[in-house]
Structures are given as structure tokens and as C-alpha cells.
């Protein structure tokens, strides 16, 4: 059992840097996807869906990547706290926005979303 742990540990040290880097890059790409979603979706609800899901996802990936790259244990622990706080706060914020949009009476756009269509129909 001990040497299994040992090999795991040594394997972990080898693979730590690249995996962290990859995670950071993927998180960045996910955030870009969210931004593109924000621009292209027609109304607030779909936009909100695009940004909130990708933000939480991208941030989680980045934080895990940073935990792998973190030099000392303390930094990793602090990153975990940040992740917990963000995991609680981010979805609540998007819920609040959706709630406010709904109470203000904004209608989700139903029907084909081709930008030519609705204007004249």
C-alpha cells in the first residue's frame, strides 16, 4: 500500500504542472464560450443561462488548475475556500437576476430565432 501511495505521489508531482496548465486553458475557453453566448442569444433568459453556467464552470476549472499549480499547501486551502464561496454566490446571483427579470415582467422570446423573421410578421 505504501509504495502505491508513493508512486501515486511521484506520478502526481510529474503530472501536476501540465494538467494545471491544461485546466487553466480549458477554463479560459469555457469563459470565452460564455461571452459568445451572451452576445448571440436573443433574450435575457437564454443569455443568463449561457453566462451563469459557463462562469461557474470556467471558474471551477481554473481554480482546480491553480490548486494543482499552487506552490504551498496554504495557497491551495485558500483556493478551496474561494471555490466554496463562489460556488454558493454565483448561482444565487443568476437566480436573483432571473427573478428580477421575471417580476419585472420580461417575456422570454418564443418561436424561431432567425433575426430576419420577427420584424415583419
Amino acid at each position: 500500500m505504501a509504495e502505491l501511495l508513493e508512486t501515486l505521489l511521484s506520478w502526481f508531482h510529474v503530472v501536476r504542472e501540465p494538467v494545471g496548465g491544461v485546466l487553466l486553458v480549458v477554463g479560459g475557453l469555457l469563459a470565452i464560450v460564455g461571452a459568445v453566448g451572451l452576445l448571440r442569444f436573443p433574450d435575457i433568459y437564454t443569455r443568463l443561462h449561457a453566462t451563469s453556467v459557463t462562469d461557474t464552470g470556467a471558474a471551477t476549472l481554473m481554480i482546480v488548475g491553480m490548486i494543482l499549480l499552487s506552490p504551498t499547501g496554504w495557497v491551495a486551502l485558500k483556493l478551496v475556500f474561494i471555490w466554496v464561496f463562489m460556488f454558493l454566490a454565483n448561482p444565487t446571483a443568476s437566480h436573483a437576476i432571473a427573478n428580477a427579470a421575471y417580476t419585472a415582467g420580461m417575456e422570454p422570446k418564443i418561436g424561431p430565432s432567425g433575426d430576419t423573421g420577427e420584424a415583419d410578421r
Partner: protein
Amino acid sequence: MSVVNPDIGVLLVNVTLLALLFFVAIAIARLRSLFAIVMLTGAYSLISAMWFVAVDAVDVAFTEAAVGAGVSTVLMLGAMLLTARTARVEPNWKRLGPLAVCLVTGAVLIYATIDLPAFGDADSAANSHVGAMYLQRTAAEIDIPNVVTAVLASYRGFDTLGETAVVFAAGLAVSLLLGFGERSLSASHKPARANLKGVLVPSNKSDHHVVLRVVAKVLIPIVMIYALYVHFHGELSAGGGFQAGTIFAVAIVLYSLLFGITAALDAFPVIWARSIAAFGVLLYAGVGFWALMNGGNYLDYDFVLPPDDPDYGPEDANTWSQHVGIILIELGVLFAVAGSLISIFYAFAGRAPEIRDEDW
């Protein structure tokens, strides 16, 4: 040899963030909707906070994010809620005068930068004289790693006392102008308002905020503990009295946004906010007097505590009492900033909105 920063990465981050700031600033200049302007000002502060991190100014980034992006956006939203929604169109001829003044000032500024030291030059006048002295002397004299907190609290402690006085004066001023939110106590129940679709929407007493309230009950204690962490950890890493006070105030603001201003006034009454602000200034100036009484100059933290080791000569610094002095005045700053910002928020929130509904 050129002093251009060879590390192209820092260069790129630097330029993109400043370009981003340009776009935000130009957008603010052209927009008329006040809501968008307020949001963009918050974005402007946040991007400049990011830029401060890119230029190794972590304490400044922390403060700019907490105070610049956080509190001022809340205050501007509060003021905008109480006033108007859109700005009026500006006639074009009005743009020429200001444009001329700005171009002239810009020209003088550009003229001045011709022989300014290069960006990032280590042995420029600014970085080699007093700034370097602080770096050399902090480890021996004040013995804390965060040199910015050492300079803020001990070397230039009087500046920060002036700073606390400014925050206290601002809290005082807004209370003088807008009262303490008494009106919100009287107008306890705001009438239900019809929304765009004509559906009667119950105002704050309804429970359609249940998700927010549950999460807030979990988050607000964490925010307050984080504020205390930022305060006490200010010597070892970025942090300190201002940021801690702001975070504490934002926790109370979050509570009053979700549970209504009357509930917040019960939980954290206005008289507490005002007296905490005054107590902060008293604590800070009091530490100065305590040092005066013990024979040192005003705000000389070497005299806050009797020297810890017996053979204490005049030349070696009493680092332990420097620590205690810095923690005490940071506590004073925390109280002053938290008290003032909370009383400012109560003043705005308590001002029952006078706006007519069609403005909304």
C-alpha cells in the same frame, strides 16, 4: 541600454487592460442611460483593479476593487434610484469648450512625460530614493512583511489619520444632508407597484426572495469573518483597515438589501454606525496621544508598549510595540470606514424614493 520590459507577457496584459479601460471610458462619455453609466463606472474600477494587480500593486488593487468597484457602485445605484434614469441630449456646440480645455491639459501632460523615467525603470528617481529606504528599513524597524502596511500605518501614519478623518467627515456630511434614514422607519410598508405587464407586484415584504435570503443567511457571516481576516492579516499580505471596513459595510448592505431596510435598522441601528465611526477616529488619534503620553512624538508606535527586551537602546526599534500600534490603528480605520459607509448607505436607503412612477 533600453529599459523596455523584455517580458512580453506583462507588456501584453498591460496594453490590453489599458485599451479595455479606453473603451469603457469612451462608452461612458457617449452613453445617456444613467444605469449603463453606473454599471460601466463599476466596470472601469474593476478593470483598473485588475491593472493594478498586473503592475504589482496588490494592496491598491484590493482597495480599488472593494471601495471603487463595490461601494461606489452601490452608492451611485442608490442615488440613481432616487433621481433620474437618463441624461438629456447634449447640444453639439457645448462639446467644443471642454474639448479644447482637455486637449490643452493633455498637451501639457504629454509634454511633461517626455523626460519622465521609463516605465518599469528600477533606478528611476522615484524608485531609488525614499521608496527604496522603506524596503530596506521595514524588516529591521517594523518587522512585518507587507511593506505597504508598514508605510501606511507607521512611517506615514499621519496620512492615514487624515484619511480616517476624511472618511469620518464623509459619513458626517451625508448624515447632515440626508438624515439617518428616519423616513424609512415611518414609510415602513411601500405600496405594491404594477410592473410592465400590469401585474401587481408586492414590494419587499413578499417571500419571492426566499432563495436569496437562505443563501444570504449562509454567506453574510462568512463575509464578516473574511473582513476580520483581511484586517488581521493585513500585515502579512494585502489587506488592512480600509478593505476590511468596506467588506464589513458591504455585508450589512447585503443584509439590508435582502431583508429590507427596517430589518437592517433593527439588526444594526444607525446610532451604532455613527458611534462606531466616531470611535474609530478616537481610537486612531488616541493611539497617537498614548504615544505622546509615553514620551514619544505623536503617533510614534515605539512608545505604545514598554520595550520587550531589557537592554533596549534608543537605536533598536521596539518592533513588538510597532505591531500592537499598527493593529490598533488598523482597527480604528476599520471602525471608521465601516461606520461611515454604513451610515452613508442608511442615509441613501432611508430616503424614501420621491420619484414618480413614470420615471421608473
